[in-house]
């Protein structure tokens, strides 16, 4: 047994571990720069973010080591227990959590806080992998789809109550996992279509247009008119160019999709204009470059973009970015840490960072594909998808391609919960991967 363990450890994917260490240390360097305080220049100073991040790094390295020594089977067998444990924490935080920025997302432990939502993805990943790899789970069946949706949706719902919309959005990542395991590709296409149509609805719904005969009306009606015209054109096209026996089906498709898209578009516009609170609406407007009424509502977005732009090709140099050093971006060391990298390391530095993340994600995907156990493969996809989702939203937010949603950049952003959560997530997979040859199931 002891021997077996040693053999397994030699099979750990050291390339991924190296990437991990690079990201963690490079992240720490940039946290030091972003949070730099001339009166506390010591990088291990515990009163500053960089000092505390060093502590988090040490804990994370320890956790990583522990995960590598665990039995892979342990995660499979205890998946439900782990899932249940984190769901319980999510429920508990709603009761005893302390409120930070209007969300009850943190357990306070002394001067530190623990954010259970950062860990809950591990539970979801494990249970989802276990369920999908169980015999009988087929995404063709509605039952499978519903159970999977339940596994993902239940903790997501609890996080939504906190409310922490940003963390909920990262749960969308599991769509990729399910797609890989057989969920219809139409889900992705419909999802993409919904994003495009939703943006159009928001943009047109925010203004008014002077219609002939009807006068000044909400701009959303222009979209309604266009969709209706397209539907009519589609019907005319089907009548004239399609063989009769196919027509009936196509008529149905056109009718259903027209009604669905109209309902979708009207409700998106209604929700944005009337249901959302003004600061959420402003964030969406800022992302879509639409005019915002309140002065300064787009401050973070503007400052992030300026900071990124300030980097130029080669960057301003480490600890020398004027926007970063003068704290133009609020709390830059957390969710906006990418802007510090972009400013001080320039376009090349940003490319290296994004490239590293893309390579890491692709590497994890490829590693997932080499698993003999479906459990390990699904879990690998979970890890890759979660990293991808965080990269997509976090970097997108900094460079103005996504709304301002407060989620961390994995291994990079300041914060103990997120660093430990991502470390556990990754190293559980690295353990599973190291065992891939031991398992014949």
């Amino acid at each position, binding site marked *: 047994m002891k021997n077996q363990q040693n053999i397994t450890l030699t099979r750990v994917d050291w390339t991924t571990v190296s990437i991990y260490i690079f990201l963690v240390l490079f992240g720490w360097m940039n946290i030091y720069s972003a949070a730099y305080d001339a009166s506390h220049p010591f990088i291990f100073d515990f009163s500053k973010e960089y000092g505390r991040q060093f502590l988090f790094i040490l804990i994370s390295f320890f956790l990583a080591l522990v995960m590598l020594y665990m039995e892979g089977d342990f995660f499979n067998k205890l998946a439900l227990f782990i899932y249940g444990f984190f769901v319980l924490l999510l429920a508990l935080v709603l009761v005893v959590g302390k409120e930070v920025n209007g969300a009850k997302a943190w357990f306070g432990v002394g001067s530190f806080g623990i954010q259970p939502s950062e860990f809950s993805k591990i539970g979801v990943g494990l249970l989802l992998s276990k369920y999908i790899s169980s015999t009988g789970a087929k995404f063709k069946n509605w039952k499978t789809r519903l159970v999977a949706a339940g596994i993902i949706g239940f903790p997501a719902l609890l996080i939504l109550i906190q409310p922490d919309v940003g963390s909920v959005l990262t749960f969308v990542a599991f769509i990729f996992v399910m797609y890989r395991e057989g969920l219809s590709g139409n889900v992705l296409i419909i999802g993409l279509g919904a994003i495009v149509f939703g943006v159009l609805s928001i943009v047109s719904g925010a203004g008014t247009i002077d219609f002939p005969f009807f006068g000044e009306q909400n701009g959303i009606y222009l979209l309604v008119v266009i969709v209706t015209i397209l539907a009519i054109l589609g019907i005319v096209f089907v009548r004239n160019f399609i063989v009769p026996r196919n027509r009936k089906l196509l008529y149905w498709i056109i009718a259903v999709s027209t009604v669905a898209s109209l309902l979708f578009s009207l409700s998106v516009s209604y929700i944005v204009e009337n249901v959302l609170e003004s600061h959420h609406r402003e964030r969406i407007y800022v992302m879509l470059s639409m005019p915002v009424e309140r002065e300064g509502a787009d401050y973070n977005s503007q400052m992030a973009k*300026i900071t990124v*732009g300030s980097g130029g090709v080669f960057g301003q140099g480490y600890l020398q970015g004027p926007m970063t050093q003068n704290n133009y971006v609020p709390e830059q060391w957390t969710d906006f840490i990418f802007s510090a990298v972009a400013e001080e390391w320039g376009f090349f530095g940003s490319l290296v960072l994004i490239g590293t993340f893309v390579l890491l994600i692709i590497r994890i995907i*490829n590693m997932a594909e080499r698993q003999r156990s479906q459990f390990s493969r699904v879990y690998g996809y979970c890890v890759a998808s979660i990293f991808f989702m965080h990269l997509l939203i976090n970097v997108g937010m900094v460079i103005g391609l996504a709304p301002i949603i407060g989620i961390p950049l994995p291994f990079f952003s300041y914060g103990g919960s997120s660093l430990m959560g991502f470390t556990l997530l990754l190293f559980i997979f690295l353990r599973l991967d190291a065992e891939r040859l031991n398992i014949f199931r």
Partner: protein
Amino acid sequence: MNFDSRRITIILIVSVIGIIYALRLLSLQVINDEWKNQGVALTEKEVIVYPSRGLIYDRKGRLLVTNQTVYDLMVLPKDVKPFDTTAFCKLVGLSYEELTSGLKKAVSWPNVKYKPSPIIKQMTPPEYARISEELYKYPGFFGTPRTLRIYPQSIGALLLGDVAEIDKGELEQKPDYRRGDYIGKSGIEKAYEEELRGTRGVRYVFRDNLGIERNVAEGKLDVAAVEGTDLIATIDAELQRYGEELMQNKRGCIVAIEPSTGEVLALVSAPTYDPNLLVGRTRGNNFRALNSDLQKPLFNRATQAQYRPGSIFKLAQSLTALQLGTITPQTRIVCNRGIIGCHGSHSNDDLEMAIVHSCNPYFRGVMQRVVEGDRDPSSRFKDARIGLDIWQGYIKRFGFGSNLKTDIPGVKTGLVPGVSYYDKWYGELQWAYSTIYSLSIGEGEMLITPIQMCNLACVIANRGWYVSPHTVKQIGNGGKPRDEFLVRYDTGIDTAHFRVVVDAMEKVVGPGGTANRAKLKDIVICGKTGTVQNEPKEDHAVFVCFAPKDDPKIAMAVYVENAGFGGTWAAPIASMMIEKYLTDTVSNKAEEKRILEANFLDR
């Protein structure tokens, strides 16, 4: 069913997003300069280096106007961390409400949280020194120096003028000024704004990670500020101060000019105020108080008050008539008091004695000879038109009825009525000399300002010419005055004609003259009193003069409102000023006390 190929789709999606983000970064960081420029605009401050405004000295090198450094306490909202507001309020001396409203203002339009806004304006150096050591505890708060004007002598408020933040109207006309810049608002500060202001410099700085401001490109882009030019004013600070003292509790003014150069030696408008009142934080309140004061201290009586000149105008009348040849010094006119009243016992004076006695019928007759010159025998109405035109031409050359080309902002022209004026008033050919004879003794429609009266004294002192009165004798230490103040304006009256007028003026101050109170032992003063009727209130006391007779160093006009006889009130003031200026002492202490104690403000 096998879904292995879906790996490719997912890897493709990840890669495409990676490429899209890379392209976006390419646009933000490399291709598009917009964001970079905005960053530079935010972090590389263009610091305006304000040149220190030029100083003003008096003619003897005494400092009249200088600069004082004060500090504005600024806040940069983005750098503010949560702080102990109670301790801060106590430190800087604000109430909690003032602090919160100040902070709120600093982030509301047009202020933004990444640009500094003032929280407390214009703290004195001791005030600022007290708090500056503690300020490091409050990130985001810092002091910036500004300079204010101060007036160490506390004299000559209206003459020196004041400085304040530029207002909207001025800003639209002067594109090279910015919001918050200071600009001269009146007096020398306004007239010589261009010279005093200097040229702004620019420093480009950025803050490094230690919070220290450093020069961009080692200061190669910086433009140095050019200090404002110092001015040497024409006034004599001691004389000005003495004049202001003599005029205390009175309304009126004193103008003293050096005849040979047109340099204003003193320009007193009473009641006056301390020019330091219109500086700094208290300016607004003080300005409102002065502006609503019923005695009008902000009104420069020396240059803006338009009075009827009264008897002193007889001097100009005499000279005009002599030049025209309509009278000679020997001409006698009977003092016929039927048409116009007179005073004193005389009946048939020649010119000299008519001036000494200020004989009204005599000068009615003098002007009649000028105006009714029989130049158009067909009608006395037509004749008067021609005559008045000629008369007006001469009178205007004394500097009456038009802007003296002075450097004092806001001077008034006065009024010398002519043909068109009376045509408008009475109708063409509806008036003759008999309609307008009040002009002959400086009454009627005639209006002149005290500085024009003093200019008349200069013309007589110079025997025929004057230099425009001005207040700055050197632009830059050792420099020259403006070119227009090196020009002599000739009145067109021959020097010979002045002898009789000057002799008469000497007698006015001599034994039995109306201004005998003004007589000095060693200095021969030539003067002329006036007493301007002002029903139903007391008369205005007027006196113009120059001294010494043969080598005039100083010419003066004194106007005391509602004081009574010119000889009793205006002449002694002039006399003491002359003595003070020429000998630096005042011998007649009893007379000085009488003047200092007089109070005409309530009349």
